[in-house]
């Protein structure tokens, strides 16, 4: 099956627009696409007519151009017939927004759709989903544009069984400055499932990181999924729900009792290099870190700060996540001491964390970061930046990013996230250094790179 029509359509038909209800999901989809997106969009309703001065087509086959993608938002009972018409009209694929299928017990309707589509090699997403957000081509989410928070275009692709969770993640992406390539809500995933999308996005040039929210896999499907992840050259992050043990069933062997659904997922995920996010906060930080750094670390952390307290808290957080903070040798400490400014030299401590004190200026950060980045003992550096340090400027992030490009050791920043310090935060974001809200957050980001172990 060819998925290009689903994700990069040039023409779009919205089937099921209402001529009198502007809040109908199909109308919301039609409006946002005709106003804001590149794909040419055609409204379809079996009664024909005029919508906002545009002709409404009674049948998909009446549209005078080839249609790449059909968005189907009609009552469930009508969907199989509509899909058959789409196939007949040589449409490239569909997103079925409508609900009323397997989720309410109408497996038969869903199966009819699947057998039609499978036979014709016709790809469709859904049913019972929001579908695809693929800027600048199109957006099938039936949410008014003005209500959505849109992240910048970037290189992370999100795939979610739940539409609500997906939109929420997009809001968080926007808030954290994480760039999004595409977002796909797969709903009942009747035909196209996580595994199909993993295989497609593994080769999609616009995607560097693939993140999934999964509720459950079918029989042996999880196995196929982790094996495919093992072969995927891009980081794959998975947030899976279902941590609470299923009750009821008598369990008679120790193994069956200890190998619960989630425990098994977590174990096999790490076996095949799937980056397991344990909660939605980790999902967001992991996406941020891995979209900046497509590399894995062992977790030997160097820390630069201007406050002893921040340094100590960062060390604690590293240890609680199983990351190490190697102490620098006397000789290394003496070397780095030589490279910082004279005022700092006398009062700073250099054992790791390197505490440059409140007298630090940009050059001291640069010297310390360069030094740590050159050390064999360190494979990732945390920069705990307090923007109220008088000698620090907003140029620092750009200069630090140069060090990363030379030394190839990931840098992760902490900046308190308040509006006043926006210029510092953006400095890091624009220069592709992940920047966390909290000290713990920087450690999560380091953890992402440690969990990603290409197989």
């Amino acid at each position, binding site marked *: 099956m060819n998925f290009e029509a689903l994700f990069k359509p040039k023409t779009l038909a919205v089937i099921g627009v209402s001529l009198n209800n502007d809040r109908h999901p199909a109308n919301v989809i039609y409006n946002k696409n005709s106003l804001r997106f590149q794909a040419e969009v055609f409204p379809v309703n079996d009664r024909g007519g005029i919508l906002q001065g545009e002709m409404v087509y009674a049948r998909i086959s009446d549209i005078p151009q080839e249609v790449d993608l059909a968005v189907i938002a009609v009552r469930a009972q009508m969907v199989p017939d509509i899909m058959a018409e789409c196939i007949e009209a040589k449409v490239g694929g569909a997103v079925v927004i409508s609900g009323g299928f397997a989720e309410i017990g109408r497996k038969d309707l869903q199966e009819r759709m699947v057998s039609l589509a499978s036979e014709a090699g016709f790809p469709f997403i859904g049913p019972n989903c929001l579908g695809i957000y693929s800027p600048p081509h199109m957006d099938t989410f039936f949410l008014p544009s003005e209500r959505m928070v849109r992240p910048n275009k970037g290189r992370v692709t999100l795939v979610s069984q739940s539409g609500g969770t997906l939109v929420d993640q997009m809001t968080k992406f926007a808030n954290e400055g994480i760039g999004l390539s595409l977002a796909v809500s797969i709903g009942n995933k009747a035909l196209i499932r996580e595994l199909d999308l993993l295989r497609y996005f593994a080769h999609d040039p616009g995607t560097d990181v693939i993140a999934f929210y999964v509720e459950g*896999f079918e029989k*042996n499907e999880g196995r196929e999924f982790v094996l495919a992840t093992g072969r995927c050259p891009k980081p794959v992050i998975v947030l899976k729900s279902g941590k609470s043990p299923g009750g009821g069933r008598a369990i*008679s*062997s*120790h*193994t069956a009792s200890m*190998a619960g659904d989630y425990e098994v*997922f977590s*174990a096999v995920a790490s076996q095949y290099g799937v980056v397991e996010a344990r909660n939605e906060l980790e999902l967001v930080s992991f996406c941020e870190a891995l979209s900046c750094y497509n590399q894995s670390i062992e977790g030997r952390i160097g820390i630069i700060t201007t406050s002893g307290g921040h340094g100590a808290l960062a060390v604690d957080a590293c240890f609680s996540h199983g990351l190490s903070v190697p102490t620098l040798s006397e000789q290394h400490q003496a070397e780095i001491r030589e490279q910082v400014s004279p005022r700092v030299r006398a009062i700073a401590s250099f054992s790791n964390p390197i505490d440059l004190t409140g007298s630090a200026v940009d050059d001291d950060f640069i010297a310390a970061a360069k030094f740590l980045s050159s050390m064999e003992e360190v494979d990732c550096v945390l920069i705990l930046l307090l923007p109220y340090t008088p000698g620090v400027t907003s140029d620092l992030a750009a200069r630090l990013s140069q060090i990363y490009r030379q030394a190839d050791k990931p840098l992760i920043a902490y900046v308190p996230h308040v509006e006043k310090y926006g210029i510092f935060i953006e400095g890091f974001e624009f220069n592709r250094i992940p920047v966390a809200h909290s000290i713990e957050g920087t450690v999560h980001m380091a953890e992402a790179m440690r969990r990603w172990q290409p197989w």
Partner: protein
Amino acid sequence: MVKKGIRNILFASKDVGWVLEPQAKRLFSMAGLNVPRFTMSSTVEEAVRFAHKIGYPIVAKVVSPRIVHKSDCDGVAVGIDTDGELTKTFTRFSQIEGFVGVLVEEMMSGLELIVGAKIDYQFGPVILLGIGGTGVEIYRDITMRMAPLRERDVESMVKGLKASPLLEGYRGSEPINLSELTRLLITFSELVMDLEEFIESIDLNPVICSSTTCVVADARIMLKETGGNP
């Protein structure tokens, strides 16, 4: 390809729903795993005769299709070293529900591990390694990987246990034979791949590991309820 002998054991156990210890041990022995010398005795005389043959001390365990966890009904006696003690134990076991005999076997010593398998709905055959014994579910010091295992999986499983220093030799104790453990896990995982359709889960608990060998000292195989004929 499942060996005929293994198939027969699984088939004969279908009605009970699980494979009792003597048959399970025979099965694993056929598959190439080490088991202690043992016999299944239905009379005291048989038990005593075998004990003399292998020499005391010995282990005696109740065999009953009604008893999945033998320790729960006090159905395991270790360190028996006289005929009198064995006779007394035999008599006591014969009162246990569903009694069909007593398994008499040589006593092994070493580190107790659990090696398990589960056919997971989402992920298929999965192998578990952990610290064994009756306290497994209290300590829950376990690691799991998808079968079939490769050597690097076994290495990371051993390293993933909190108690891995115990396996690698802790405070003067000898390390266990890791290459024997690796061989056991890989052989076991291949067997589990072959038995996927028939089984639900397996406990080898304990597997007793010393500096020379790893021996399956107890085993149970839970069969799939609706499994096909092996």
